[in-house]
């Protein structure tokens, strides 16, 4: 596929899966004629028709419920959240029905459903459009939560999510849609439950996901200059967590830093930290450190917004302190 832009990698995943399986369809606001607010479904309705790329009214809870009913009866819907924040209006359908219904029904129904769309803190979009929802959803039983971070993993993961027989919340990031990468010509799928070892190292394990992976990578040259070799792991699967990969790394480095975009309170990092304490306490040479975004609504002002989200400089100084045993 040569060099591919992030949103086109997602589009290709959807296109390939729709061509492969006629029960796959997309629904959401402006996914059809308009092509999706980030162009992920551009021109797909011309190819597949209006029922397979269904423009819905602005009724998040109800069209999510509808997708669940369609999934229960044999279709494989992909919901696009125009912005993942709007899914707050669908929290009930996502939690009660997407997440729990299979269990509540004693296995009578399965819900092969993907809910995907742009999440995270963008550029000065204001608090409501700069949500960090993955943490809100992580406690819902029955949901899988995936965060993609590169064109390559976005494509392979989305294809797997569409083929999965469970509800998958699939987080993209507004600021990553224009990343470019060479993608393989041939088809590939990536496992939904595996973390990605981005960089092998020995001094400290950095656990991160989504856009923060790139902030960590920006910090890497400076860390290397200082003679620090971090092992960088992109969690990919926020639920369930890939404890095999996390544990192997912690056993090697004995130091852990989590870099996340969600808020600290009740965040993904909080859950990871607790899990490390329970499983790997004896392996640790220092307390687990969390770099999270601030526990505040994302401010509009550019400087304040920058201060709200973890920045590469902060990663450098905190890692340096951790390795220098100052933490």
């Amino acid at each position, binding site marked *: 596929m040569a060099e591919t832009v992030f949103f086109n990698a997602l589009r290709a995943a959807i296109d390939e899966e729709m061509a492969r399986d006629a029960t796959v369809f997309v629904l959401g606001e402006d996914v059809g004629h308009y092509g999706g607010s980030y162009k992920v479904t551009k021109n797909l309705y011309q190819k597949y028709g209006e029922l397979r790329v269904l423009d819905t009214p602005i009724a998040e809870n109800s069209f999510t419920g509808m997708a669940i*009913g369609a999934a229960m009866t044999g279709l494989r819907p992909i919901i696009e959240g125009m912005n993942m924040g709007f899914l707050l209006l669908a929290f009930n359908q996502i939690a009660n029905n997407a997440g729990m219904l299979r*269990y509540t029904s004693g296995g009578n*129904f399965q819900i092969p459903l993907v809910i995907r769309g742009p999440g995270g803190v963008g550029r000065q979009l204001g608090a409501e459009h700069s949500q960090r929802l993955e943490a809100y959803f992580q406690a819902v039983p029955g949901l899988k939560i995936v965060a993609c971070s590169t064109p390559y993993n976005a494509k392979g993961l989305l294809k797997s999510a569409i083929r999965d*027989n469970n509800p998958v919340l699939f987080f993209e990031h507004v600021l990553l849609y224009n990343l470019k990468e060479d993608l393989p010509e041939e088809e590939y799928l990536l496992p939904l439950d595996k973390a990605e070892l981005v960089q092998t190292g020995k001094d400290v394990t950095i656990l991160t996901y989504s856009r923060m992976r790139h902030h960590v990578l920006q910090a890497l040259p400076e860390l290397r200059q200082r003679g620090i070799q971090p092992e960088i792991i992109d969690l990919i699967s926020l639920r369930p967590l890939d404890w095999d990969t996390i544990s192997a790394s912690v056993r090697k480095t004995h130091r852990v830093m989590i870099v996340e975009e969600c808020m600290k309170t009740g965040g993904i990092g909080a859950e990871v930290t607790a899990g490390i304490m329970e499983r790997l306490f004896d392996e640790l040479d220092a307390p687990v450190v969390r770099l999270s975004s601030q526990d505040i609504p994302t401010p509009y002002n550019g400087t304040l917004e920058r201060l709200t989200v973890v920045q590469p400089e902060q990663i450098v100084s905190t890692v340096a302190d951790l390795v220098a045993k100052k933490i």
Partner: protein
Amino acid sequence: MLQERPLPTFSPAAVQLSREEGLALYEDMVLGRIFEDKCAEMYYRGKMFGFVHLYNGQEAVASGVIRGALRPGVDYVCSTYRDHVHALSAGVPAREVMAELFGKATGCSKGRGGSMHMFSAKHRLLGGYAFVAEGIPVAAGAAFQTKYRREVLGDTTADEVTACFFGDGACNNGQFFETLNMAALWKLPILFVVENNKWAIGMAHERATSDPHIYKKASVFNMVGVEVDGMDVLAVREVAQTAVARARAGEGPTLIEALTYRFRGHSLADPDELRSKEEKEFWLSRDPIKRLGSYLLEQDLATNQDLKTIDQKIKQVVEDAVTFAEQSPEPDPRELRRYIFAED
């Protein structure tokens, strides 16, 4: 003075009803009634727990729609937390519903669901939804699936209709309006059946809504809306048959407002002190089972003995369901985490 909304008139003279059909409807309603009476008994004897919402008085709606107009096991049924009788009418065996209430492994939801969460994929029962109005869009999704199979997958046999049941209280929730809009927009094969029993727990319907005539709310969506005497199974059957024909013909959904009443409190935990004696007596005198019984006798479609035989048979069925539920195993604790994901 009790001011009741005038019930729509229905002339049974025009009804085409065979003896078999009449007796089948009667039997289905009697099953609903006796089953629920038994639930009350078992609840007070500590055999079932949680919130248990009974359907006494409303039987004509489930029987008239599901048995009178749908093909149970083919067409989809979606219910609320007041779901035992919809499950029975949809064909879920009384044994499985009772066992679910007892929390047993043999229950239709394997003891994971309980009173408010009856499910059966085999009987196309989409569930038991405990949050008010959340089943409405799910039902529309099943109807969308039928349309999709027909139009996208080219499956000409895809002709299922979905019947979605909910209460008057649900009609003030956004999901009702949002889903009616989408269902009318896409002409989905669905019946929205409102069981207007005048109350949402202790909230009187006219205190909760700007226009108490729910069926009229269909018109703003360009949808057909009809009101029907929900205490008359033949009237319900008639409007449901028309709505099903419309849905199958691709003409879209119908909103049916069935005027009905629950003969018991909101749930078995409700002391039911708010509704007046006068009101209760008015509606009790309109018992849908007695009404169909009299009709069948008057029309020489059944004898007193026929009806008694049915009553006896159903008592047996319900007793058998209780025995089955009592003797069934508890869910295996080792399977606590089963059914969370599709692979389990």
